[in-house]
Protein backbone atom coordinates (compact mmCIF):
# COMPACT_ATOMS: atom_id res chain seq x y z
CA UNK A 1 0.00 0.00 0.00
CA UNK A 2 1.66 3.21 -1.08
CA UNK A 3 1.17 6.51 0.65
CA UNK A 4 -1.72 8.50 -0.73
CA UNK A 5 -0.55 11.15 -3.14
CA UNK A 6 -2.12 14.56 -3.63
CA UNK A 7 -1.86 16.98 -6.46
CA UNK A 8 -1.70 20.56 -5.28
CA UNK A 9 -3.32 22.92 -7.73
CA UNK A 10 -3.54 26.65 -7.48
CA UNK A 11 -7.12 27.67 -6.90
CA UNK A 12 -6.80 30.21 -9.68
CA UNK A 13 -6.31 27.42 -12.20
CA UNK A 14 -9.52 25.67 -11.20
CA UNK A 15 -11.39 28.72 -9.91
CA UNK A 16 -15.13 28.39 -10.06
CA UNK A 17 -15.17 24.90 -11.56
CA UNK A 18 -16.58 21.68 -10.25
CA UNK A 19 -14.16 18.94 -9.37
CA UNK A 20 -15.33 15.42 -8.68
CA UNK A 21 -13.88 14.08 -5.47
CA UNK A 22 -12.95 10.50 -4.64
CA UNK A 23 -16.49 9.78 -3.50
CA UNK A 24 -17.79 11.16 -6.82
CA UNK A 25 -19.39 14.07 -4.96
CA UNK A 26 -19.16 17.30 -6.92
CA UNK A 27 -17.07 19.83 -5.06
CA UNK A 28 -17.16 23.54 -5.83
CA UNK A 29 -13.72 25.05 -5.44
CA UNK A 30 -13.98 28.51 -3.90
CA UNK A 31 -11.88 30.88 -5.93
CA UNK A 32 -10.59 32.65 -2.82
CA UNK A 33 -8.76 29.56 -1.59
CA UNK A 34 -5.01 29.71 -2.21
CA UNK A 35 -4.61 26.12 -3.31
CA UNK A 36 -6.46 22.84 -3.25
CA UNK A 37 -5.28 19.30 -2.79
CA UNK A 38 -6.78 16.68 -5.07
CA UNK A 39 -6.14 13.07 -4.05
CA UNK A 40 -4.44 11.05 -6.79
CA UNK A 41 -5.39 7.46 -7.46
CA UNK A 42 -2.74 6.46 -9.97
CA UNK A 43 0.11 8.97 -10.33
CA UNK A 44 2.75 10.06 -7.88
CA UNK A 45 2.61 13.84 -7.51
CA UNK A 46 5.75 14.35 -9.62
CA UNK A 47 4.36 12.18 -12.41
CA UNK A 48 1.07 14.04 -12.32
CA UNK A 49 2.86 17.38 -12.66
CA UNK A 50 4.81 16.03 -15.66
CA UNK A 51 1.73 14.77 -17.42
CA UNK A 52 -0.20 17.96 -16.55
CA UNK A 53 2.61 20.03 -18.07
CA UNK A 54 2.54 17.90 -21.23
CA UNK A 55 -1.24 18.26 -21.47
CA UNK A 56 -0.88 22.02 -21.12
CA UNK A 57 1.52 22.04 -24.08
CA UNK A 58 -0.92 20.05 -26.21
CA UNK A 59 -3.94 22.17 -25.29
CA UNK A 60 -2.42 25.43 -24.05
CA UNK A 61 -4.09 28.28 -22.23
CA UNK A 62 -3.92 31.12 -24.75
CA UNK A 63 -5.87 33.90 -26.38
CA UNK A 64 -8.36 31.43 -27.87
CA UNK A 65 -9.46 30.37 -24.38
CA UNK A 66 -8.83 27.99 -21.50
CA UNK A 67 -6.73 24.88 -21.97
CA UNK A 68 -5.94 21.51 -20.42
CA UNK A 69 -5.04 23.02 -17.01
CA UNK A 70 -8.37 24.74 -16.52
CA UNK A 71 -10.21 21.64 -17.70
CA UNK A 72 -8.48 19.56 -15.01
CA UNK A 73 -7.36 17.07 -17.65
CA UNK A 74 -4.80 15.56 -15.30
CA UNK A 75 -7.52 14.48 -12.89
CA UNK A 76 -9.37 12.79 -15.72
CA UNK A 77 -6.24 10.96 -16.91
CA UNK A 78 -5.43 9.92 -13.35
CA UNK A 79 -8.92 8.49 -12.78
CA UNK A 80 -8.92 6.68 -16.12
CA UNK A 81 -5.55 5.08 -15.47
CA UNK A 82 -6.71 3.96 -12.04
CA UNK A 83 -9.83 2.36 -13.49
CA UNK A 84 -10.48 -0.86 -15.36
CA UNK A 85 -10.10 1.12 -18.58
CA UNK A 86 -6.50 1.96 -17.71
CA UNK A 87 -5.68 -1.68 -17.21
CA UNK A 88 -7.52 -2.64 -20.37
CA UNK A 89 -9.59 -5.01 -18.32
CA UNK A 90 -12.48 -5.01 -20.79
CA UNK A 91 -10.44 -5.57 -23.92
CA UNK A 92 -9.58 -9.21 -23.46
CA UNK A 93 -5.86 -8.76 -23.89
CA UNK A 94 -4.96 -11.66 -21.66
CA UNK A 95 -1.41 -12.93 -22.25
CA UNK A 96 0.14 -14.52 -24.20
CA UNK A 97 -0.51 -12.01 -26.97
CA UNK A 98 0.49 -13.24 -30.41
CA UNK A 99 4.04 -12.15 -31.10
CA UNK A 100 3.13 -10.95 -34.57
CA UNK A 101 0.80 -8.34 -33.14
CA UNK A 102 3.60 -6.48 -31.36
CA UNK A 103 3.96 -3.74 -33.95
CA UNK A 104 0.22 -3.15 -33.90
CA UNK A 105 0.25 -2.40 -30.15
CA UNK A 106 -2.89 -3.93 -28.68
CA UNK A 107 -5.06 -2.05 -26.28
CA UNK A 108 -6.19 1.42 -25.48
CA UNK A 109 -3.95 4.50 -25.27
CA UNK A 110 -4.57 4.37 -21.52
CA UNK A 111 -3.19 0.85 -21.42
CA UNK A 112 -0.09 2.04 -23.27
CA UNK A 113 0.43 4.74 -20.65
CA UNK A 114 -0.22 2.31 -17.84
CA UNK A 115 2.36 -0.17 -19.05
CA UNK A 116 4.92 2.55 -19.68
CA UNK A 117 4.60 3.99 -16.18
CA UNK A 118 4.08 0.88 -14.13
CA UNK A 119 5.80 -1.92 -16.04
CA UNK A 120 8.60 0.13 -17.59
CA UNK A 121 7.82 -1.19 -21.04
CA UNK A 122 5.58 -0.52 -23.95
CA UNK A 123 3.59 -3.21 -25.68
Amino acid at each position, binding site marked *: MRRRQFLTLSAKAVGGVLVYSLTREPLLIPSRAQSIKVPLRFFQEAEALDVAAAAA*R*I*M*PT*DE*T*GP*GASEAGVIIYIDRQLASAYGRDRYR*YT*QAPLPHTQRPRAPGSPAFQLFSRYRCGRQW
Partner: protein
Amino acid sequence: MSYRFLPDVFPLLTQTREKYGESRLPKNHMIRDWAVSYDDLEPYYDHAEKMMGISGKAGNLRGRLIEGGNIFEGPRQNEYPTQPAKQPYIATKFRDAATSLGYHPYPIPAATLSVPYTNPDCISRNSCAYCGFCERFGCMIGAKAQPSNTLLPVLRGKKNFELRPSCWVRRIVVKDGRATGVEYTNEKGEEFLQPADLVLLSTFTMNNVRLLLLSKIGEPYDPRNGRIALGSNLTHQVSHAPATMFFEEPLNRFMGSGAAGFTISDFDGDVLDHSNLPFLRGGILRVFSSGMRPIASFGVLPPSVKPTWGSEWKKASTYYFDRTATFSFSGEHLAYRENFMDLDPTYKDKFGDPLLRFTLDWQENERKMADFFTPKAVDIAHAMGAKEVVPFAGLRRYDTRRYQTTHIQGGTVAGRTPEDSVLNSYSQHWQVPNLFVLGASAFPQSPGPNPTPTVLAMAYRTADALIERYLKQPGTLV
Protein backbone atom coordinates in the same frame (compact mmCIF):
# COMPACT_ATOMS: atom_id res chain seq x y z
CA MET B 1 -32.22 5.50 -40.35
CA SER B 2 -35.14 3.33 -41.34
CA TYR B 3 -34.59 2.04 -44.87
CA ARG B 4 -36.38 -0.84 -46.52
CA PHE B 5 -34.09 -3.20 -48.38
CA LEU B 6 -34.25 -3.18 -52.18
CA PRO B 7 -36.26 -6.10 -53.63
CA ASP B 8 -33.11 -7.51 -55.30
CA VAL B 9 -31.57 -8.12 -51.86
CA PHE B 10 -33.80 -11.15 -51.23
CA PRO B 11 -33.16 -13.48 -54.23
CA LEU B 12 -29.46 -12.60 -54.07
CA LEU B 13 -27.84 -15.92 -54.95
CA THR B 14 -30.25 -16.91 -57.75
CA GLN B 15 -30.23 -13.48 -59.30
CA THR B 16 -26.45 -13.02 -59.20
CA ARG B 17 -25.91 -16.46 -60.78
CA GLU B 18 -28.42 -15.77 -63.54
CA LYS B 19 -27.16 -12.30 -64.34
CA TYR B 20 -23.38 -12.67 -63.98
CA GLY B 21 -22.75 -16.42 -63.89
CA GLU B 22 -21.37 -18.71 -61.18
CA SER B 23 -17.80 -17.64 -61.94
CA ARG B 24 -18.40 -14.13 -60.58
CA LEU B 25 -19.26 -15.46 -57.10
CA PRO B 26 -16.30 -15.59 -54.70
CA LYS B 27 -15.10 -19.20 -54.39
CA ASN B 28 -15.47 -19.19 -50.60
CA HIS B 29 -18.90 -17.49 -50.50
CA MET B 30 -21.84 -18.64 -48.40
CA ILE B 31 -24.36 -16.30 -50.03
CA ARG B 32 -27.96 -17.52 -49.87
CA ASP B 33 -31.35 -16.37 -51.08
CA TRP B 34 -33.53 -15.10 -48.27
CA ALA B 35 -36.44 -17.26 -47.13
CA VAL B 36 -38.77 -14.31 -47.76
CA SER B 37 -39.24 -11.89 -50.67
CA TYR B 38 -39.79 -8.15 -50.67
CA ASP B 39 -43.48 -8.79 -51.48
CA ASP B 40 -43.79 -11.10 -48.46
CA LEU B 41 -42.44 -8.34 -46.23
CA GLU B 42 -44.10 -5.27 -47.78
CA PRO B 43 -47.27 -5.31 -45.59
CA TYR B 44 -45.08 -5.73 -42.52
CA TYR B 45 -42.67 -2.97 -43.54
CA ASP B 46 -45.78 -0.80 -43.89
CA HIS B 47 -46.96 -1.79 -40.42
CA ALA B 48 -43.53 -1.21 -38.83
CA GLU B 49 -43.33 2.25 -40.41
CA LYS B 50 -46.77 3.14 -39.01
CA MET B 51 -45.91 1.89 -35.53
CA MET B 52 -42.78 4.06 -35.44
CA GLY B 53 -44.18 6.96 -37.49
CA ILE B 54 -41.25 6.85 -39.90
CA SER B 55 -40.67 10.17 -41.66
CA GLY B 56 -39.65 10.14 -45.29
CA LYS B 57 -40.73 10.47 -48.90
CA ALA B 58 -41.88 7.57 -51.06
CA GLY B 59 -40.09 7.03 -54.37
CA ASN B 60 -42.24 4.17 -55.63
CA LEU B 61 -45.97 4.20 -54.79
CA ARG B 62 -47.55 0.99 -56.15
CA GLY B 63 -45.22 1.12 -59.16
CA ARG B 64 -45.44 4.86 -59.82
CA LEU B 65 -41.99 6.47 -59.49
CA ILE B 66 -41.84 9.76 -57.62
CA GLU B 67 -38.96 12.21 -57.99
CA GLY B 68 -37.55 13.30 -54.65
CA GLY B 69 -38.09 9.88 -53.08
CA ASN B 70 -35.94 6.78 -53.53
CA ILE B 71 -36.88 5.79 -57.09
CA PHE B 72 -34.91 2.54 -56.75
CA GLU B 73 -36.99 1.21 -53.85
CA GLY B 74 -39.57 -1.57 -54.17
CA PRO B 75 -43.24 -0.65 -54.65
CA ARG B 76 -44.84 0.68 -51.47
CA GLN B 77 -48.56 0.48 -50.80
CA ASN B 78 -48.47 3.70 -48.76
CA GLU B 79 -46.56 6.97 -48.43
CA TYR B 80 -44.47 7.28 -45.25
CA PRO B 81 -46.64 8.00 -42.19
CA THR B 82 -44.95 11.38 -41.61
CA GLN B 83 -43.31 13.92 -43.89
CA PRO B 84 -39.50 14.16 -44.23
CA ALA B 85 -37.58 15.78 -41.40
CA LYS B 86 -36.21 19.30 -41.69
CA GLN B 87 -32.86 19.23 -43.44
CA PRO B 88 -29.60 20.60 -42.06
CA TYR B 89 -27.57 22.99 -44.21
CA ILE B 90 -24.84 20.44 -45.04
CA ALA B 91 -27.46 17.92 -46.22
CA THR B 92 -29.03 20.44 -48.61
CA LYS B 93 -25.58 21.13 -50.06
CA PHE B 94 -25.24 17.38 -50.65
CA ARG B 95 -28.72 17.15 -52.21
CA ASP B 96 -27.96 19.98 -54.66
CA ALA B 97 -24.52 18.64 -55.61
CA ALA B 98 -25.78 15.06 -56.05
CA THR B 99 -28.68 16.28 -58.21
CA SER B 100 -26.30 18.33 -60.38
CA LEU B 101 -24.24 15.17 -60.98
CA GLY B 102 -27.33 13.22 -62.09
CA TYR B 103 -27.92 11.21 -58.90
CA HIS B 104 -31.27 10.81 -57.10
CA PRO B 105 -30.99 12.07 -53.52
CA TYR B 106 -33.87 11.46 -51.13
CA PRO B 107 -34.42 12.32 -47.45
CA ILE B 108 -33.16 9.59 -45.11
CA PRO B 109 -36.21 7.76 -43.70
CA ALA B 110 -36.06 8.49 -39.98
CA ALA B 111 -37.53 6.99 -36.82
CA THR B 112 -37.48 10.51 -35.35
CA LEU B 113 -40.85 12.18 -35.92
CA SER B 114 -40.97 15.24 -38.17
CA VAL B 115 -44.45 16.16 -36.86
CA PRO B 116 -46.49 15.07 -33.82
CA TYR B 117 -47.92 11.63 -34.55
CA THR B 118 -50.27 9.03 -33.11
CA ASN B 119 -49.61 5.43 -34.12
CA PRO B 120 -52.16 2.58 -34.61
CA ASP B 121 -51.69 1.63 -30.92
CA CYS B 122 -52.88 5.17 -29.99
CA ILE B 123 -49.41 6.14 -28.75
CA SER B 124 -48.79 9.85 -29.34
CA ARG B 125 -45.30 11.29 -29.59
CA ASN B 126 -43.80 14.74 -30.11
CA SER B 127 -41.80 15.88 -33.10
CA CYS B 128 -38.04 16.21 -33.17
CA ALA B 129 -36.36 19.34 -31.80
CA TYR B 130 -33.06 18.68 -33.67
CA CYS B 131 -31.17 19.00 -30.39
CA GLY B 132 -28.12 17.12 -31.68
CA PHE B 133 -28.09 14.41 -29.02
CA CYS B 134 -29.82 11.63 -30.88
CA GLU B 135 -28.26 8.46 -32.14
CA ARG B 136 -26.19 7.59 -29.05
CA PHE B 137 -28.81 8.79 -26.57
CA GLY B 138 -32.32 8.16 -25.34
CA CYS B 139 -34.67 10.81 -26.77
CA MET B 140 -35.67 13.23 -24.02
CA ILE B 141 -38.86 14.33 -25.74
CA GLY B 142 -39.87 10.98 -27.19
CA ALA B 143 -39.56 11.99 -30.85
CA LYS B 144 -37.33 9.00 -31.58
CA ALA B 145 -39.17 5.68 -31.69
CA GLN B 146 -37.69 3.34 -29.13
CA PRO B 147 -39.27 0.39 -27.28
CA SER B 148 -39.65 2.51 -24.14
CA ASN B 149 -42.02 4.92 -25.89
CA THR B 150 -43.82 2.75 -28.44
CA LEU B 151 -44.00 -0.79 -27.06
CA LEU B 152 -43.71 -0.65 -23.28
CA PRO B 153 -46.59 1.85 -22.76
CA VAL B 154 -48.89 -0.64 -24.52
CA LEU B 155 -47.59 -3.68 -22.65
CA ARG B 156 -47.73 -1.94 -19.27
CA GLY B 157 -51.51 -2.02 -19.36
CA LYS B 158 -51.71 -5.76 -20.05
CA LYS B 159 -52.66 -7.95 -17.11
CA ASN B 160 -50.76 -10.93 -18.55
CA PHE B 161 -47.50 -9.00 -19.00
CA GLU B 162 -44.61 -8.88 -16.57
CA LEU B 163 -41.20 -7.30 -17.14
CA ARG B 164 -38.34 -8.68 -15.06
CA PRO B 165 -35.47 -6.21 -15.39
CA SER B 166 -31.81 -6.90 -14.53
CA CYS B 167 -32.11 -10.59 -15.29
CA TRP B 168 -29.64 -12.60 -17.38
CA VAL B 169 -31.08 -15.52 -19.31
CA ARG B 170 -28.24 -18.02 -19.37
CA ARG B 171 -29.76 -21.12 -20.92
CA ILE B 172 -32.77 -22.17 -22.93
CA VAL B 173 -33.84 -25.55 -21.62
CA VAL B 174 -34.75 -28.09 -24.29
CA LYS B 175 -36.20 -31.52 -23.64
CA ASP B 176 -37.18 -34.03 -26.35
CA GLY B 177 -37.03 -31.41 -29.11
CA ARG B 178 -39.11 -28.82 -27.27
CA ALA B 179 -38.09 -25.73 -25.31
CA THR B 180 -39.45 -26.13 -21.80
CA GLY B 181 -38.27 -22.80 -20.37
CA VAL B 182 -35.30 -20.60 -19.63
CA GLU B 183 -32.80 -20.47 -16.79
CA TYR B 184 -31.95 -16.99 -15.59
CA THR B 185 -30.01 -15.22 -12.86
CA ASN B 186 -31.32 -12.04 -11.27
CA GLU B 187 -29.27 -9.09 -10.02
CA LYS B 188 -28.87 -10.68 -6.58
CA GLY B 189 -27.30 -13.73 -8.20
CA GLU B 190 -30.31 -15.96 -7.50
CA GLU B 191 -31.01 -18.56 -10.15
CA PHE B 192 -34.45 -19.35 -11.51
CA LEU B 193 -36.09 -21.69 -13.97
CA GLN B 194 -38.97 -20.06 -15.83
CA PRO B 195 -41.14 -22.73 -17.50
CA ALA B 196 -42.55 -21.81 -20.92
CA ASP B 197 -44.74 -23.21 -23.69
CA LEU B 198 -43.22 -20.85 -26.24
CA VAL B 199 -39.82 -19.10 -26.23
CA LEU B 200 -39.10 -16.02 -28.36
CA LEU B 201 -35.36 -15.34 -28.39
CA SER B 202 -34.78 -11.73 -29.40
CA THR B 203 -31.58 -10.67 -27.69
CA PHE B 204 -29.61 -9.13 -30.59
CA THR B 205 -27.55 -11.02 -33.16
CA MET B 206 -24.62 -11.92 -30.96
CA ASN B 207 -26.49 -13.03 -27.87
CA ASN B 208 -29.03 -14.98 -29.94
CA VAL B 209 -26.14 -17.04 -31.29
CA ARG B 210 -24.35 -17.28 -27.97
CA LEU B 211 -27.42 -18.45 -26.04
CA LEU B 212 -28.13 -21.15 -28.61
CA LEU B 213 -24.49 -22.29 -28.49
CA LEU B 214 -24.49 -22.34 -24.67
CA SER B 215 -27.83 -24.18 -24.66
CA LYS B 216 -26.52 -26.69 -27.23
CA ILE B 217 -29.46 -26.10 -29.54
CA GLY B 218 -28.52 -26.96 -33.12
CA GLU B 219 -25.23 -27.96 -34.70
CA PRO B 220 -22.41 -25.40 -34.29
CA TYR B 221 -20.78 -24.22 -37.51
CA ASP B 222 -17.62 -25.97 -38.60
CA PRO B 223 -15.53 -23.84 -41.02
CA ARG B 224 -13.83 -27.01 -42.30
CA ASN B 225 -17.00 -28.23 -44.01
CA GLY B 226 -18.55 -24.81 -44.75
CA ARG B 227 -22.15 -25.96 -44.26
CA ILE B 228 -24.64 -23.40 -42.97
CA ALA B 229 -25.07 -23.97 -39.22
CA LEU B 230 -25.29 -22.13 -35.93
CA GLY B 231 -22.72 -19.30 -36.05
CA SER B 232 -22.12 -19.25 -39.81
CA ASN B 233 -22.74 -16.34 -42.20
CA LEU B 234 -21.41 -13.66 -39.85
CA THR B 235 -21.56 -10.33 -41.66
CA HIS B 236 -21.00 -6.76 -40.51
CA GLN B 237 -22.37 -3.98 -42.72
CA VAL B 238 -19.44 -2.29 -44.50
CA SER B 239 -19.45 1.20 -43.02
CA HIS B 240 -16.98 4.06 -43.14
CA ALA B 241 -16.53 7.67 -44.23
CA PRO B 242 -15.47 7.65 -47.92
CA ALA B 243 -14.47 11.32 -47.70
CA THR B 244 -14.02 14.06 -45.11
CA MET B 245 -14.75 17.59 -46.28
CA PHE B 246 -13.55 20.99 -45.04
CA PHE B 247 -15.51 24.12 -45.90
CA GLU B 248 -14.89 27.84 -45.63
CA GLU B 249 -18.26 28.66 -44.09
CA PRO B 250 -19.73 27.39 -40.79
CA LEU B 251 -22.17 24.49 -41.20
CA ASN B 252 -24.17 24.66 -37.93
CA ARG B 253 -23.64 20.98 -37.44
CA PHE B 254 -24.30 21.16 -33.69
CA MET B 255 -27.97 20.90 -34.72
CA GLY B 256 -29.44 17.78 -36.22
CA SER B 257 -30.93 14.42 -35.48
CA GLY B 258 -29.79 10.84 -36.00
CA ALA B 259 -31.07 10.65 -39.57
CA ALA B 260 -31.35 14.30 -40.68
CA GLY B 261 -29.86 14.19 -44.16
CA PHE B 262 -30.02 12.80 -47.68
CA THR B 263 -29.09 9.45 -49.22
CA ILE B 264 -28.36 8.31 -52.76
CA SER B 265 -29.14 4.71 -53.70
CA ASP B 266 -27.81 5.04 -57.26
CA PHE B 267 -25.09 2.47 -56.42
CA ASP B 268 -27.07 0.26 -54.01
CA GLY B 269 -27.79 -3.45 -54.50
CA ASP B 270 -27.69 -4.28 -58.19
CA VAL B 271 -28.88 -0.87 -59.42
CA LEU B 272 -25.56 -0.53 -61.23
CA ASP B 273 -24.62 -3.14 -63.84
CA HIS B 274 -21.70 -5.03 -62.32
CA SER B 275 -20.63 -6.85 -65.53
CA ASN B 276 -17.51 -4.71 -65.84
CA LEU B 277 -16.97 -3.84 -62.20
CA PRO B 278 -14.47 -5.72 -60.02
CA PHE B 279 -17.02 -6.38 -57.26
CA LEU B 280 -20.61 -7.52 -56.71
CA ARG B 281 -23.43 -5.53 -55.08
CA GLY B 282 -23.12 -2.04 -53.60
CA GLY B 283 -24.29 0.38 -50.97
CA ILE B 284 -25.60 3.83 -50.16
CA LEU B 285 -23.91 7.20 -49.75
CA ARG B 286 -25.30 9.83 -47.44
CA VAL B 287 -24.56 13.12 -45.73
CA PHE B 288 -26.35 13.99 -42.53
CA SER B 289 -25.97 15.97 -39.36
CA SER B 290 -26.64 14.17 -36.13
CA GLY B 291 -24.99 16.81 -33.93
CA MET B 292 -21.31 17.59 -33.37
CA ARG B 293 -20.14 16.59 -29.88
CA PRO B 294 -17.68 18.94 -28.17
CA ILE B 295 -15.09 16.22 -27.47
CA ALA B 296 -15.90 13.44 -29.95
CA SER B 297 -15.94 15.78 -32.96
CA PHE B 298 -13.01 18.01 -31.95
CA GLY B 299 -9.64 18.08 -33.68
CA VAL B 300 -10.46 16.85 -37.20
CA LEU B 301 -8.24 18.95 -39.45
CA PRO B 302 -7.48 19.27 -43.16
CA PRO B 303 -4.02 18.26 -44.43
CA SER B 304 -3.09 21.94 -44.89
CA VAL B 305 -2.89 22.30 -41.10
CA LYS B 306 0.49 20.88 -40.07
CA PRO B 307 0.74 21.18 -36.24
CA THR B 308 -0.80 18.34 -34.25
CA TRP B 309 -0.65 20.10 -30.86
CA GLY B 310 -0.13 23.53 -29.29
CA SER B 311 -1.67 26.95 -29.89
CA GLU B 312 -1.76 26.80 -33.67
CA TRP B 313 -3.38 23.35 -33.63
CA LYS B 314 -5.90 24.49 -31.01
CA LYS B 315 -6.82 27.56 -33.06
CA ALA B 316 -7.27 25.48 -36.22
CA SER B 317 -9.28 22.83 -34.36
CA THR B 318 -11.64 25.51 -33.05
CA TYR B 319 -11.94 27.06 -36.51
CA TYR B 320 -12.62 23.78 -38.32
CA PHE B 321 -14.90 22.32 -35.65
CA ASP B 322 -18.00 23.52 -37.48
CA ARG B 323 -16.48 23.54 -40.97
CA THR B 324 -15.99 19.78 -41.19
CA ALA B 325 -18.39 17.22 -42.59
CA THR B 326 -18.15 13.58 -43.62
CA PHE B 327 -19.78 11.26 -46.08
CA SER B 328 -21.24 8.09 -44.69
CA PHE B 329 -21.20 4.82 -46.61
CA SER B 330 -23.16 1.67 -45.83
CA GLY B 331 -22.45 -1.29 -48.04
CA GLU B 332 -23.29 -4.93 -48.47
CA HIS B 333 -21.18 -7.53 -46.79
CA LEU B 334 -21.30 -10.94 -48.43
CA ALA B 335 -21.13 -14.15 -46.39
CA TYR B 336 -17.92 -16.19 -46.54
CA ARG B 337 -16.82 -19.52 -45.17
CA GLU B 338 -14.06 -17.92 -43.06
CA ASN B 339 -16.33 -15.47 -41.20
CA PHE B 340 -18.24 -16.97 -38.28
CA MET B 341 -19.11 -16.91 -34.58
CA ASP B 342 -18.32 -19.56 -31.97
CA LEU B 343 -17.72 -19.83 -28.23
CA ASP B 344 -14.43 -18.33 -27.07
CA PRO B 345 -11.97 -20.89 -25.69
CA THR B 346 -10.34 -18.37 -23.32
CA TYR B 347 -12.61 -15.57 -22.16
CA LYS B 348 -15.61 -16.08 -19.89
CA ASP B 349 -18.32 -13.86 -18.43
CA LYS B 350 -18.93 -13.29 -14.72
CA PHE B 351 -20.84 -16.55 -14.49
CA GLY B 352 -17.98 -18.52 -16.03
CA ASP B 353 -19.81 -19.01 -19.35
CA PRO B 354 -17.68 -18.61 -22.51
CA LEU B 355 -18.03 -15.34 -24.40
CA LEU B 356 -18.90 -15.24 -28.07
CA ARG B 357 -15.95 -15.08 -30.47
CA PHE B 358 -15.82 -13.45 -33.90
CA THR B 359 -13.61 -14.74 -36.68
CA LEU B 360 -13.94 -12.06 -39.32
CA ASP B 361 -12.01 -10.20 -42.00
CA TRP B 362 -12.83 -8.20 -45.10
CA GLN B 363 -12.32 -9.83 -48.47
CA GLU B 364 -11.61 -8.50 -51.95
CA ASN B 365 -15.27 -7.76 -52.74
CA GLU B 366 -15.59 -5.36 -49.79
CA ARG B 367 -12.21 -3.72 -50.39
CA LYS B 368 -12.90 -3.13 -54.08
CA MET B 369 -16.38 -1.85 -53.32
CA ALA B 370 -14.92 0.68 -50.85
CA ASP B 371 -12.33 1.73 -53.46
CA PHE B 372 -15.12 2.31 -55.98
CA PHE B 373 -17.12 4.59 -53.69
CA THR B 374 -14.25 6.80 -52.50
CA PRO B 375 -13.75 8.74 -55.77
CA LYS B 376 -17.54 9.04 -56.18
CA ALA B 377 -17.75 10.73 -52.78
CA VAL B 378 -14.74 12.94 -53.55
CA ASP B 379 -16.42 14.15 -56.77
CA ILE B 380 -19.61 15.03 -54.92
CA ALA B 381 -17.56 16.75 -52.18
CA HIS B 382 -15.95 19.02 -54.80
CA ALA B 383 -19.38 19.73 -56.30
CA MET B 384 -20.51 20.71 -52.79
CA GLY B 385 -17.79 23.36 -52.71
CA ALA B 386 -15.48 21.75 -50.17
CA LYS B 387 -12.15 23.59 -49.91
CA GLU B 388 -10.22 20.46 -48.95
CA VAL B 389 -11.23 16.80 -49.22
CA VAL B 390 -9.57 13.83 -47.53
CA PRO B 391 -10.41 10.50 -49.20
CA PHE B 392 -10.84 7.24 -47.28
CA ALA B 393 -7.56 5.35 -46.97
CA GLY B 394 -9.05 1.95 -47.88
CA LEU B 395 -10.74 -0.88 -46.02
CA ARG B 396 -7.68 -3.13 -45.44
CA ARG B 397 -8.26 -5.49 -42.47
CA TYR B 398 -11.35 -5.74 -40.28
CA ASP B 399 -10.62 -3.83 -37.06
CA THR B 400 -12.89 -3.98 -34.01
CA ARG B 401 -11.29 -0.85 -32.59
CA ARG B 402 -12.90 1.33 -35.24
CA TYR B 403 -16.59 1.87 -34.54
CA GLN B 404 -18.57 0.88 -37.60
CA THR B 405 -22.24 0.50 -36.67
CA THR B 406 -23.98 -2.09 -34.53
CA HIS B 407 -25.33 -3.82 -37.65
CA ILE B 408 -23.95 -7.29 -37.10
CA GLN B 409 -25.90 -10.02 -38.85
CA GLY B 410 -26.10 -13.77 -39.33
CA GLY B 411 -25.45 -16.78 -37.15
CA THR B 412 -28.96 -18.25 -37.24
CA VAL B 413 -29.72 -18.06 -40.96
CA ALA B 414 -33.37 -18.35 -41.99
CA GLY B 415 -33.81 -20.44 -45.11
CA ARG B 416 -36.05 -22.78 -47.03
CA THR B 417 -34.69 -26.17 -45.96
CA PRO B 418 -33.47 -27.52 -42.59
CA GLU B 419 -30.30 -28.81 -44.29
CA ASP B 420 -29.31 -25.32 -45.41
CA SER B 421 -30.48 -23.05 -42.58
CA VAL B 422 -31.05 -22.81 -38.84
CA LEU B 423 -34.52 -21.22 -38.93
CA ASN B 424 -37.45 -21.35 -41.33
CA SER B 425 -38.91 -18.25 -42.97
CA TYR B 426 -40.88 -17.44 -39.79
CA SER B 427 -37.65 -17.49 -37.77
CA GLN B 428 -38.89 -20.69 -36.17
CA HIS B 429 -36.12 -23.09 -35.18
CA TRP B 430 -36.12 -26.14 -37.49
CA GLN B 431 -35.32 -28.56 -34.64
CA VAL B 432 -37.24 -26.87 -31.81
CA PRO B 433 -40.59 -25.68 -33.20
CA ASN B 434 -41.66 -23.77 -30.06
CA LEU B 435 -38.49 -21.63 -30.20
CA PHE B 436 -38.46 -18.52 -32.43
CA VAL B 437 -35.24 -16.54 -32.95
CA LEU B 438 -35.96 -12.93 -33.91
CA GLY B 439 -33.50 -10.36 -35.18
CA ALA B 440 -30.79 -9.79 -37.78
CA SER B 441 -29.19 -13.11 -36.79
CA ALA B 442 -31.64 -14.58 -39.33
CA PHE B 443 -30.15 -12.59 -42.25
CA PRO B 444 -28.06 -14.77 -44.61
CA GLN B 445 -25.84 -11.77 -45.48
CA SER B 446 -25.76 -8.02 -44.85
CA PRO B 447 -27.52 -5.72 -47.31
CA GLY B 448 -26.26 -2.14 -47.67
CA PRO B 449 -28.79 -0.05 -45.73
CA ASN B 450 -29.53 -0.32 -42.03
CA PRO B 451 -31.42 -3.42 -40.86
CA THR B 452 -33.97 -2.29 -38.24
CA PRO B 453 -37.18 -2.02 -40.36
CA THR B 454 -36.47 -5.45 -41.85
CA VAL B 455 -35.91 -6.93 -38.38
CA LEU B 456 -39.27 -5.46 -37.35
CA ALA B 457 -41.06 -6.56 -40.54
CA MET B 458 -39.86 -10.14 -40.05
CA ALA B 459 -40.94 -10.02 -36.38
CA TYR B 460 -44.43 -8.75 -37.30
CA ARG B 461 -44.72 -11.48 -39.93
CA THR B 462 -43.81 -14.06 -37.28
CA ALA B 463 -46.28 -12.50 -34.80
CA ASP B 464 -49.07 -12.74 -37.39
CA ALA B 465 -48.31 -16.41 -38.03
CA LEU B 466 -48.14 -17.10 -34.29
CA ILE B 467 -51.55 -15.58 -33.63
CA GLU B 468 -53.30 -16.79 -36.78
CA ARG B 469 -51.89 -20.29 -36.92
CA TYR B 470 -49.42 -21.40 -34.27
CA LEU B 471 -51.49 -20.64 -31.16
CA LYS B 472 -54.46 -22.47 -32.68
CA GLN B 473 -52.35 -25.45 -33.61
CA PRO B 474 -48.79 -25.40 -32.28
CA GLY B 475 -46.30 -26.96 -34.66
CA THR B 476 -44.05 -26.25 -37.58
CA LEU B 477 -45.29 -23.28 -39.63
CA VAL B 478 -43.89 -24.37 -43.00
